[in-house]
């Protein structure tokens, strides 16, 4: 069974080495690919120096287009399982085997690494938690499914969903919307408790000023996804 870790990286020169080391030592069964989304810092140089496996986007596409490139790669290269994994040290590779086992044994289409089942590790700030809880409620309302961590960027999918995401993936702020889309298509999604770390490197793509726009845009996207067939 071929398994791939997709690492979207935009200006992650400080965290990318550690991330790859973490995967190589804690999830050796997985291949990995870094999607360098036209970083303006030394991300590419760091990758080349270390001989990391990297796909270089010639134009900045944003998180959605970047991650989708990873799914395209997984689809074209016959991977059975693909998992998204942040390049900034927030995620821990030691959970990847457990996630894959859950995906296979329970015949699921997606397994999300959730911070909010056991409520251990880094829990994000209060206001963000509130926003995440709101999305949990909204997704439950439109799909009937409780996703405790809908903004988690740590998510593993099977071959079906790889193909689906290779074709359609939201451009910006894709996490909550893409879960709703596949739930609406009758796919099975479950969560696995994980611990995440506070961001060590880089800055969040969602600044306070953008968060209002984020809430409105993602809410609308979820509602539209709920009515799309």
């Amino acid at each position, binding site marked *: 069974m071929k398994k791939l870790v997709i690492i979207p990286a935009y200006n992650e020169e400080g965290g990318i080495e550690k991330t790859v080391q973490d995967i190589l030592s804690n999830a050796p069964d997985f291949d990995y690919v870094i999607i360098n989304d036209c970083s303006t810092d030394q991300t590419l140089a760091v990758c080349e120096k270390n001989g990391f496996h990297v*796909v*270089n*986007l*010639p*134009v900045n*596409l944003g998180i959605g287009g970047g991650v989708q*490139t990873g799914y395209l*790669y997984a689809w074209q290269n016959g991977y059975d399982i693909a998992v998204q994994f942040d390049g900034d040290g927030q995620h821990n590779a030691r959970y990847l085997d457990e996630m894959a086992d859950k995906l296979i044994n329970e015949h699921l289409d997606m397994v999300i690494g959730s911070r909010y089942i056991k409520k251990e590790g880094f829990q994000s700030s209060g206001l963000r938690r509130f926003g995440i809880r709101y999305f949990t409620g909204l997704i439950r309302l439109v799909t009937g499914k409780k996703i405790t961590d809908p903004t988690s960027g740590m998510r593993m999918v099977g071959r079906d969903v790889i193909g689906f995401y290779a074709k359609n993936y939201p*451009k910006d702020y894709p996490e909550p919307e893409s879960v709703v889309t596949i739930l609406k298509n009758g796919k099975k999604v479950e969560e696995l408790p994980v611990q995440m770390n506070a961001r060590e490197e880089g800055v969040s793509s969602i600044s306070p000023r953008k968060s209002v726009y984020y809430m409105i845009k993602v809410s609308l996207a979820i509602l539209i996804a709920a009515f799309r067939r």
Partner: protein
Amino acid sequence: MSLKIQIIVAVVIVLALAGIANMVRKEALDLKFALSWLAVGVIVLILDIFPGIMNYLVSLLGIELPVNMMFFFGFCFTLLLVFTLTVKVSKQAEQLKRLTQTIALLEENIRKGAEVKSKDE
């Protein structure tokens, strides 16, 4: 409308039409996109030369001043045009994204092929 203004408007429009036609000729502007602008130019030119049409339309629609009708239709046309462009931009963003992804993956493929080859040698 005074004859003087009529002539000025006609000259401006004819110049604009000629300019658009010239851009199409030099392939700086796609005929497909120039068409709507050419149509607007021709319509305004006709209304300018035959003000009777305008007065008739104004009384027909119950609009008090001819100039209000111009503003109204001008505004509607602009909205439509801007919206069409927004749709176009969305589509092109999608196409651009696909192109970028395809190039990136091809480039990776070539690099991988070159590495395998250099190892073989």
